[in-house]
């Protein structure tokens, strides 16, 4: 066990964990930040996506020791009040069904828009194809990303 300082959503958290512990479980089980979701545990579905220094990463395969000294943003910290253009667009486009994958979808889309402020459908497909949704909300996710661009 080692102590780690983590910068999450603008706050510093000090935790004790095994160095191989994935960030996902630090967030969910040690810090109670349950907005980041567990689904595949192997970096295959994107439900656990968070931003580390504005890059989208799969927190289920990111070791806690590799997340220290960096700025971590989870769905809880994307905006103080759900007012991020993507969050608003997700509501407007009525994207959510079960909603479980959507924090990962939104965080992955947020990273996309930081790099590419006006992505085409093809850009969106390429960036978002690794975040899985069993409910099949993809068409609306695409629309919501376009809407967020317009309303940002």
């Amino acid at each position, binding site marked *: 066990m080692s102590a780690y300082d983590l910068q999450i959503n603008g706050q510093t958290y000090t935790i004790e964990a095994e160095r191989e512990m994935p960030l996902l479980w630090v967030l969910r089980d040690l810090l109670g930040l349950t907005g980041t979701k567990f689904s595949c545990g192997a970096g295959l579905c994107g439900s656990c996506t968070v931003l580390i220094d504005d890059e989208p990463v799969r927190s289920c395969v990111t070791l806690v020791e590799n997340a220290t000294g960096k700025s971590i943003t989870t769905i809880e910290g994307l905006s103080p009040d*759900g007012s991020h253009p993507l969050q608003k667009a997700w509501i407007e486009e009525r994207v959510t069904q079960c909603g479980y994958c959507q924090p990962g979808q939104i965080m992955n889309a947020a990273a996309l828009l930081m790099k590419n402020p006006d992505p085409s459908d093809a850009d969106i497909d390429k960036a978002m194809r690794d975040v899985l949704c069993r409910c099949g909300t993809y068409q609306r996710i695409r629309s919501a990303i376009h809407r967020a661009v317009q309303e940002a």
Partner: protein
Amino acid sequence: MKTNLNRRDFLKLTGLAGGGMVIAIYLEGCSPGTDAPTVILVTPDATVAPDATATPQPPFAWEADIYLKLDKQGILTFTAFRSEMGQGIRTALAMLAAEELNIPWSSVRIVQADADSRYGDQLTGGSTSIYSYYDAMRLAGAAAREVLLQAAALAWEVDPAQCSTEAGFVIHPDGAQKTSYGDLAEAAAKVGRPAQTQLKDPSQFTIVGTPLGHWDAPKMVTGQAVYGLDVRLPNMLFAAIARCPVFNGSFTSYDDAEARAIPGVKDVVELEDRIAVVAENSWAAIRGRDALKITWDEGTNGTTDSQEMMVQAKSNMRREKKGGLLEADYEMPYEAHATMEPMNCTAHFHDGVCEVWAPTQSPQDVKQAVSRVTGLLPSKIPVHVPLIGGGFGRRLQTDYAEEAALLSQAIAAPVQVVWTRSDDLQHDFYHPMSFQYAYIPLDKVAIPPIRVANGAGVPTGAWRSVQEFTRAYSEQSFIDEMALAMKRDLLDLRRELYQDDDRALGVINLAAEKSNWGESLPARQGRGMAYFATFGVTYVAHVAEVSVEENGNIRVDRVVCAVDCGSVVNPDNVAAQMQGGIAFGLTAALKAEATIKNGRVQQTNFHDYPILRMDEMPLVEVYIVPSNRRSSGIGEMGVPPIAPAVANAVYAATGKRIRHIPIRPKDLRA
């Protein structure tokens, strides 16, 4: 808790079988099920129900007041009693009550009911919730509105029949004065049951029939929504469980030394045929579980082989002997549910009570199952239902809840049992594999008979649209094969087959029109149609447009969907469920299957159980047939026609008839 016994703040209502109303008034600070000094005004029979022939009553007695609460701020709290797994039922049920109550949607809050037989059967499956409760929810809202009207009329000393309501207010007969529902809540609680309950004419609807997003969406997009895996209790432990990889197997021995040495692991506990590793966090529990060295007792299923099953089913199939037949065989594999939220459950056994937080489609079944395994009376097992990260039928089972309850009982601590993705894929209750034989005399125009043979030795269960997916696949594929053999136009033959069914014809014609059926497409592109009335209540026709590359890669470019589900509660949600049903069906049609070898499911994660991705999602257009008929279900109905529509489109594009799913690129290489 402060309780002012003189203030009666909550008005609660419900419809009774036969159209009656019970109005119960609860004192502030009390809730149903406590020993609150409630006042019950009963009326079993007199209130007005809609035409009983048009509106079948739910098949149970409604006994208590459990749906609606109105507080003094005018906020309506609606208690949803069916499980939300993405199909939008919490929102839809509340819309119906709010509509008749005439309260703005922004004043509605939704909470989730525990397992409670007062709600009737809470089993959420078969796309039945709206079908069963459309009128009941309207009645509840209408009765509440009537009580508020009477309370206002009493205060104003006017005839309630001369008063009206509008967006959370009762309007005085003079048209000028008005009082808010919130201000009337206290007085309304003293009004007796309404002698009459007036339902709106549907033409007056302002909420029902409008496109609304799910009420839970704002919490979902901010990470605040609580799913089963998000339940957190003080001092809660986490557990992962080793289950025999062969169905119904057990273990003979195990070595847990390495597991116990992992930091954070607290205990290793035998649970009948399984072994649980309990830890301070999920990761330690999973690592500990994976570190167990177990000798399995495979039991009698250690040679189960799905490929062999298909061969057997084919050779055992009883075939027609006479000549002059068109015949075809179709093959469908086992399919997993692969909900994005893996199975899980949280239980807290204490003081002779086992409290359960189960992301389940059937909380009452969970209560019974936990009672069976723990020996507790059902009354000692409160079952709470968090949001569900995908159900699709998997969460009609109770295995995950039994594990959590048994484990909590064993360790006398609150515990969350976490399933990994491989646990979830390998210990599912699968959509059954099937070998299907269709035949018809070549001179006969009729829906073809189909014989279905399934495998054995594998747990199976409800999977979004259940046997309708199986039947629609072979039936609607074979109808295209019939048309080709009979040299008939594909659309004309379908019209003839369904000529006596207006609703079938309605969706078939609408889908054909909107998809430009008959217009030519470039080479290696094709259109395919399929139609199915899932559970006989909701009529759906899909036209799929596919492109097949030279290397066999299949892309579904577009799906035009026509749906007749009777009266529509939330048209946007109908469209969402059709889109979702199509995506779900496409995963089975083109991508994923569960195979079993040596008694073991071979797939472990999304790399070998691949579900549809964003760049594979077709553009889906949904057209809803306007209808005043009884509202039917939508959750499953988009699924069955999509696989045959794609198979038919692939034939149109390539001239190759593929009679199995998933259709793979290797099947189509030019």
